[in-house]
């Protein structure tokens, strides 16, 4: 009865799914398909070599400091890193005095201790980086109705991570002269509208952020040439740190844990083989080794043609 009912219900589901399949295939094959411009012109992120790549990846403090400098002088005008505190900068190799100095250059929101009115004061190491705008409305008002996202987690919040950020920052192209891999020019309807900028690494090709980096825009303290490529990679490395400050600790701890567990696997393997060595071929009755069980074991071994 259950089987009969099952077969009936089965045919029901198969029928309805088949109707959907036939309908969808009809629609699919009777129409012309043209890949959308977003598909044809969208580029996957370039592959950059970051010091954090791979299982042994670690932070390059020099690069993080350069990236922080780019963030501070270029990005911080519009983008916050609200989950990062000034005190965290010690992981970039800054000493306490330097951190105090950096913090004091930012104004953080507070309350006037005398009047209770909202006020600002210079930041302290315990403060987090303040958001550049007091709220979303202010941010949109200042940016042509676009909202600059907080960058603390941006590397983990985008497919492609650090490669994507660096690709995007270096990926602005002139829409009038751009040709994709097939040598095709950008269709007019996909050209950037008012206040938008063409960038093939951005999923829908046009984004509100104008090209933020120009060569020589920052003066690196360590004398590195501030090319757009260099700054893009430095700031991406910095944003990898803001998104995953424990990355280096994680990789190091992982090495110890994996080595330990490899060793545990070897031990467990030999323990397993050792325990089973006797049972592989010899047949053994379970239970207490009383005469009855021993006799069963012997009989089983005889039947199986095993000695001993």
């Amino acid at each position, binding site marked *: 009865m259950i089987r009969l009912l099952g077969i009936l219900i089965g045919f029901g589901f198969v029928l309805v*799914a088949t109707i959907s*399949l036939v309908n969808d295939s009809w629609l699919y094959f009777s129409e012309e398909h043209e890949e959308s411009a977003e598909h044809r012109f969208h580029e996957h992120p370039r592959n950059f070599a970051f010091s954090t790549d791979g299982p042994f990846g670690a932070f390059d403090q020099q690069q993080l400091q350069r990236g922080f400098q780019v963030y501070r002088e270029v990005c911080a005008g519009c983008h916050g890193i609200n*989950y990062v505190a000034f005190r965290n900068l010690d992981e970039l190799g800054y000493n306490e005095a330097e951190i105090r100095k950096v913090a004091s250059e930012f104004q953080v929101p507070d309350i006037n201790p005398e009047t209770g009115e909202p006020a600002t004061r210079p930041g302290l190491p315990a403060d987090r980086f303040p958001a550049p705008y007091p709220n979303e409305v202010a941010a949109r008002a200042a940016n042509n109705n676009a909202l600059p996202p907080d960058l603390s987690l941006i590397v*983990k919040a985008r497919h492609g991570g650090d490669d994507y950020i660096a690709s995007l920052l270096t990926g602005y192209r002139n829409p009038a002269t751009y040709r994709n891999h097939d040598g095709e020019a950008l269709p007019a309807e996909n050209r950037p509208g008012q206040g938008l900028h063409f960038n093939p690494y951005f999923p829908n090709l046009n984004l509100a952020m104008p090209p933020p980096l120009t060569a020589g825009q920052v003066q690196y303290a360590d004398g590195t040439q501030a090319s757009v490529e260099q700054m893009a990679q430095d700031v991406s490395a910095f944003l990898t740190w803001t998104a995953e400050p424990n990355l280096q600790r*994680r990789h190091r701890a*992982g090495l110890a844990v994996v080595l330990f567990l490899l060793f545990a696997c070897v031990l467990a393997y030999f323990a397993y083989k050792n325990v089973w060595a006797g049972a592989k071929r010899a047949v053994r009755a379970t*239970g207490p080794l009383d005469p009855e069980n021993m006799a069963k*074991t012997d009989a089983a071994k005889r039947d199986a043609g095993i000695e001993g």
Partner: protein
Amino acid sequence: MGFPWAQEYQPKSGFMRWIDQRLPLPRLVYGAVGGGYPVPRNLNHFWNFGVLAGVALAIQIVTGIVLAMHYNANADTAFASVEHIMRNVNQGWFLRYAHANGASFFFIVTYIHIFRGLYYGSYKAPREMVWLLGLVIFLLMMATAFMGYVLPWGQMSFWGAKVITGLFGAIPLVGEALQTWLLGSFAPDQSTLTRFFSLHYLLPFVIAGVIILHIWALHIPGSSNPTGVDVKGPQDTVPFHPYYTAKDGFALAIFMLLLAAVIFYAPNYLGHADNYIPANPLATPAEIVPEWYFWPFYAILRAFTVDFILPAKLWGVIAMFGSIVLLFFLSWLDPSPVRSGNYRPTFRIFFWILIVDVIVLGYCGGKPAEQPYVMISQLATIYYFAHFLIILPILSHVERTLPLPNSISESVLHGEAEEAAPYGTPSRGAQPQPQPQPAH
């Protein structure tokens, strides 16, 4: 303790005798997972995964309880509290990554455990109750995992909650009221978050309770084995301890190694980038996808695109829940007395098609709802239902199965195949035996 197979426990010391007489816990342990529980000697490594699933649950409970000490179930601060765990709590990043990836590994080992049950006929008599309780655990796991994914209150959390509870909205008449009742509001909100947190904390303990029933029910007939032949005598078994504790120990070490590799080196690989964006009810993500372990079911949901008597969305919902509900009837849909797929050559072919089919469904479920993925998932959905509801019931009547070995020990010794049963070959010197003995 009521396990018909268990050997009599004989305390080795006066102390244990003293305890045993007052609280027979040593007796229970000895009979359940100790030297007193005889287990078929030919179990292969697929029989490790039940223990691994239990360990995975333990990992989830331990990491989850500590995470709950730092997490904040408040729609305004939940996302920030997760970042607080990642940045400021000592080893908080490890706890969170272990919990998030532990969930994935829980599903990986559970899916392999279900795979084992499907191939070796573990759902057949006399183990139907083990199978049914296992499915209850699976459903509870899915509910727990879904609610857990909502807690970080990222974009995928929010929109996943909206889409999944929206499924209940497809039910005629009561749907919308039901959805509002589930969410506690008209869209995922503070009330949704707090109730999901409460249930997410509760359900793992319910799962633990059902696992006890699952193991209890298992200990009545005892474990099945790769031949599917019943245990005939003591020569067919080895005591659970030390043989299977040692074997499970090895499997556990491998499991931990793989889990650690993901936690430490690819902790976000199985997640979705959008969940690092705080929930925003005003911005729909480009594509809403659940966690990977729901993808096959998500593909079935989206495969129904035509209104036929019922609205397409309702068909999708019915089919998605039906794809799991039908598993509850599996023991009766497939009455073939031969349990193991090793001795069912035709079943084996359809079984492997099913496995490929489910993987295809999973692949399509993770893709956006556009062609050709929808058509592929429709094809795969058709096979999924046909397999369980049409092919299996008919096959179990018409299939010519291979002769079974006379006993487990014979199959073990034949050809020195170690623990694995020989693959559907007639036993040496034995008459071909088309049907096995009735189980009980």
